[in-house]
């Protein structure tokens, strides 16, 4: 299932991403059929991308193991596809055997790739919840906040979503956890940096 496409970066051989993803799905589906059940394997979210209107990547979270080259190729394709969409079109795109759910907030596109059977409308809600969290944390978040504080954006995402699934449905709890973790970080940092700056160590 994994590692079927060996990437040879040095020789620059083309990598077949679809083959990988589809064969991953097929392998799992075959497993399920072997058990005799017909089910939609919910691998849920495959990846989430944030990018600007010029196509610059601001955040990329991958929930499936892929090589760097594969990731780059997929990102490029998806970004191109989404940027080509006209404003009046619906938020869902079929791409290979995945569905791309995207929404634009100001200058940033938030884009999730979900498995075909997924409820697209609730994915939109997930995206919206993440934006709300960012907004609450940064106070009227804008693209620059995410650029300069990308690691924080990741921390917030990782408190909200784990392995492609939402782990906490309460906005308050997510933000509280982040706050406390931030405080822990500051407590660890604070004494040292002050002394260092004074030059006493």
């Amino acid at each position, binding site marked *: 299932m994994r590692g079927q496409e060996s990437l040879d970066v040095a020789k620059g051989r083309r990598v077949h991403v679809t083959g990988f993803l589809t064969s991953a799905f097929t392998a799992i589906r075959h497993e399920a059929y072997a058990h005799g059940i017909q089910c939609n394997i919910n691998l849920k979210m495959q990846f989430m991308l944030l990018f600007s209107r010029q196509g610059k990547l601001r955040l990329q979270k991958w929930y499936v*193991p892929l090589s760097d080259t594969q990731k780059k190729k997929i990102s490029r394709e998806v970004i191109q596809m989404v940027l080509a969409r006209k404003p*009046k079109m619906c938020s869902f795109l079929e791409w290979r055997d995945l569905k791309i759910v995207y929404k634009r907030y100001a200058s940033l596109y938030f884009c999730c790739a979900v498995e075909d059977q997924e409820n*697209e409308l609730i994915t939109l809600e997930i995206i919206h*919840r993440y934006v709300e969290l960012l907004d609450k944390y940064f106070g009227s978040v804008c693209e620059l906040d995410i650029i300069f504080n990308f690691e924080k954006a990741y921390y917030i995402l990782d408190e909200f979503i784990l*392995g492609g699934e939402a782990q906490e449905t309460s906005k308050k709890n997510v933000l509280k956890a982040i706050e406390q973790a931030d405080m822990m970080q500051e407590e660890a940092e604070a004494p040292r940096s002050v002394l260092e700056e004074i030059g006493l160590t």
Partner: protein
Amino acid sequence: MPAPIRLRELIRTIRTARTQAEEREMIQKECAAIRSSFREEDNTYRCRNVAKLLYMHMLGYPAHFGQLECLKLIASQKFTDKRIGYLGAMLLLDERQDVHLLMTNCIKNDLNHSTQYVQGLSLCTLGCMGSSEMCRDLAGEVEKLLKTSNSYLRKKAALCAVHVIRKVPELMEMFLPATKNLLSEKNHGVLHTSVVLLTEMCERSPDMLSHFRKLVPQLVRILKNLIMSGYSPEHDVSGISDPFLQVRILRLLRILGKGDDDSSEAMNDILAQVATNTETSKNVGNAILYETVLTIMDIKSESGLRVLAINILGRFLLNNDKNIRYVALTSLLKTVQTDHNAVQRHRSTIVDCLKDLDVSIKRRAMELSFALVNGNNIRGMMKELLYFLDSCDPDFKADCASGIFLAAEKYAPSKRWHIDTIMRVLTTAGSYVRDDSVPNLIQLITNSVEMHAYTVQRLYKALLDDISQQPLVQVASWCIGEYGDLLVSGQCEEEEPIQVSEDEVLDVLEGLLVSNLSTPVTRAYSLTAIMKLSTRFSSVNRIKKVVSIYGSSIDVELQQRAVEYNALFKKYDHMRPALLERMPIMEKTASNGPTDIVQTNGETDSTILDTKHLPNITQPASQANDLLDLLGGNDVVPVIQTTVPTKPASAGGELLDLLGDLSLTGGPTPTPAPSVPMSQPSFLLDGLTSQPLFNDIAAVIPPMTAYNKNGLKIEFTFERSNPNPNIAVITIHATNSSEADMTEFVFQAAVPKTFQLQLLSPSSNVVPALNQGSVTQVIRVLNPQKQQLRMRIKLTYTHKGSPVQDLAEVNNFPPQSWQ
């Protein structure tokens, strides 16, 4: 050494770069600094350096030299280090990397850390990208954490367990005990992740599924509480309480209720409640409704509930929000098979969606429209679909055209409508039509006997406009070849007949041959069409010239055809009429198209003319093999008449009752047969002699006169078929010695049951007066038992204005013809 620059500083600097080259330079400089800092094993700034590295990695630059540093950060005691370390691990250290496994020990330690946020970090990393080996090693720890009372950790452990199960399905069993009281949690986070875990287990194992069915009442209760409870600020989204949890519960209910009556029964009420009470003004409400509809359709719900679900989808279709419409069309496509009538009610809305601007919506609307077409709505739907075909993107055209053909074939209200529809598709989307449509269309056209004149006229007009669309051109040239005589005679009933001369038609066909737009296949079609017209048109010389030119064509296919046609003109001219006769109705079989030859014609030298290249002489096998005794005890077998030039072809396989009314469609019905008792074979006409009237030098078997009366003489000449000695090929020659022509001449024959007979089309149906010409027709008789050949013949014709009909028995066959 100065402290490495801060992360924000670096970001700011890089953003000032005005060109890609400038940026690359800055990045390379910084990378070098970072690398030397790593080499110095600087603990203080490792965290900062890795953070910068991660930023550069996001810009697309390589960062693999930071992998080990991430490991070191994870192993550090400082929380800041761990935070960046784990982030770096998730970005740089996925399972494809060699050093991935080195994380295992660190993660294991951190899973047991005293600080829950550290535990949280490690759970998150494991749950996002742990490899199967890692999962195997650490599953025990995860299972322990699944039983903790700390809800912060419990929810993460649940999702981590989901990941472990996905990677190593065999480990599913070990999490079973821990799931016992997961649903009694109050904490929504834990509830949500528990439902995800249960869903995953149920989907992977039927045993788990049956085990967890008992949870249905509990799930129903939780869902009910969510809906009925008042406003809860913590989980509220636009007035709805925790929609994420509601959706996941609905999904789990779907899996549990599928195929199980009791469970489905238990959830009927709550589903109805959710369906009716959910606020639909915002997307979140619709998301829940959508999930509810999916659940209702999948479980064994009562019909009222199903209708409710379809109606919800119908309302979705009218929603202004495109996303909702998209979702509705997708679900309707899934349900159209099972709840067809309910979906039909929303047909007009679906058809409107064809005009939507969004590509995904259009595609779904098209698929759904095809699913909804039936005999009642075919006219209206086809109008919309044809309009759609005109205006849609090229990617759609092929699918749309195929769909239209299928629908038209199934539900066409009339032949004329069917032909019109096909014409419309060919002219608007002709180049997108699939290759296999051409033979199907040809077969269809042949079957619509009364529409031949109309069809060929319309196709001819279409050709005049546009010869670029190959499928259209191929079908048109085939039809012109077949029905060219109808075209020039201006016989169209359905619309205003056009005046076109033979030369004009030949101009068009020759134009196809030379045009650059024509593919080799099209050229072959037009050459054959031209050849066929040699029996239907009078300008044979022109045709001969064209055919001989292509005898030296570079295209091997064309050359071979032309050479063979030439041979037909020169050596086998007497066979030409029979070979190029009108095609009979083709039986639609799965594989046979008009280009498949089922049976060769009765030429003696079948090797000279390779019948594969003359598609117009197909004789469906069914005709020859059909043996039905219509007359009970009588051993005379009615024969199947093949088509006569001016009369429309009778349907293939139709049997003619020789002794009853002859029902040739469209032709004048002859007077009823004389009432001859058919219980015993009786000679109706005596005095038939079998003396040969002339010696056929070439034939080994002497010819015979089968009938000679009232000026009409019919002679049989014989040939034995070489490949099959049981087949005798009889050519009849009908001559007329009276002063008036015999028109509408039809020759029919019947043989005893032990024989099989095949009658090919005659050369014409006018026997000119005063022996100025003859009508020839070929009969093939299969005589496997080598019995004495006997035949009963029936002749009908119009002579001097009055119809004449006669029956005769032919018994005096020369022995060589059947021994």
